[in-house]
């Protein structure tokens, strides 16, 4: 039987399968139960064929109601898989540790704990040997942090990847160019700069917060690219 509204059986099959796939990939535990409930109407909705016979809406018979439910469920899949818990205390403690690290680095080595700046110091073309060596030690510390936390607590904090690899390469390039040109990132301008009450850093921080929020708004709410 042909599909409805310009959608053929193959396409509607593909839609339903894709949805099931997303459910499996992007959800866990409680989220999955909510989604199963959401998917239920799509897979069980009854519809009527040309002769007036009731047909159970199974794979390949997604009509327009099914599609509306589908797009609603799709949106829910995205929201449920992307939602993160509000963690004020954990974030505050993490932030204070970051602040402590910035203090330790300044109090002992006299260096600003700006990650983009520190990474820059170990990159060609011009390398200042003594600065590069302490920067490298700091970077090693950063790289050791996750394995250390894993050994101590047995787990790592949850993380959900959103962007496509191609997008990540572009993002990485833009972050590198931007922080290199603007002399700082979230740590150098955002934490250390604001802690020194630097106007330069305040302007940088307001600027990158703004363009970042605008970017997320465009990607999520205008383009709707959530894959």
């Amino acid at each position, binding site marked *: 039987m042909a599909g409805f509204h310009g959608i053929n059986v193959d396409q509607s099959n593909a839609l339903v399968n894709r949805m099931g796939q997303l459910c499996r990939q992007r959800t866990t535990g409680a989220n999955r139960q909510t989604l199963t409930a959401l998917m239920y109407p799509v897979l069980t909705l009854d519809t009527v064929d040309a002769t007036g016979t009731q047909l159970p809406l199974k794979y390949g018979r997604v009509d327009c109601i099914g599609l509306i439910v589908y797009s609603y469920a799709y949106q829910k899949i995205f929201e449920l898989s992307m939602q993160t818990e509000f963690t004020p205390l954990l974030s505050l403690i993490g932030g204070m540790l970051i602040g402590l690290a910035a*203090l330790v680095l300044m109090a002992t080595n006299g260096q600003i704990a700006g990650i983009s700046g520190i990474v820059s110091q170990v990159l060609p073309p011009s390398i200042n040997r003594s600065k590069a060596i302490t920067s490298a030690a700091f970077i090693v510390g950063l790289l050791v942090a996750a394995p250390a936390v894993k050994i101590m607590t047995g787990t790592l904090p949850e993380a959900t990847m959103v962007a496509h690899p191609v997008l990540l390469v572009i993002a990485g390039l833009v972050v590198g160019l931007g922080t290199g040109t603007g002399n700082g990132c979230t740590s150098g301008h955002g934490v250390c700069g604001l802690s020194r009450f630097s106007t330069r850093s305040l302007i940088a921080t307001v600027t990158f917060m703004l363009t970042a929020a605008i970017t997320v708004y465009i990607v999520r709410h205008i383009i709707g690219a959530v894959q």
Partner: protein
Amino acid sequence: MNLITALIAGLIFGVGLLFSGMTNPAKVQNFLDIFGLWDPSLAFVMGGAIAVTAPGYYFLRKRTGTFLGAKFQWPTRTDIDNRLVAGAAMFGVGWGLGGFCPGPALTALPFAFESVTGPLWFVPAMLVGLGIAKANN
């Protein structure tokens, strides 16, 4: 000695990033998604960090050298130029796109093979970007 303190500082920094949620790109993007799935947690990260660093810096400013006898490298620039604003604007776009800024991307790198693979793509590209910017500085 200063290598050990730099390493310890990096380690504390990374642990802080992991606890704070900064290494979770979804959380970062939700923080930036004010009109959507807004999760304000990360405001507490910056707040907590500044609450420790600002008073600490205030006292360190009164010293002439570090506890290891090194010179303080306090940034001296105060000018607001196009490079600062354009660079920060670019950084924001990349941060929003990928959900990673430099520190968390490096911190998440060791586990990129088994969980979130993002840093595998992001970090090399970021190093190239930083290298290009440095060469043109």
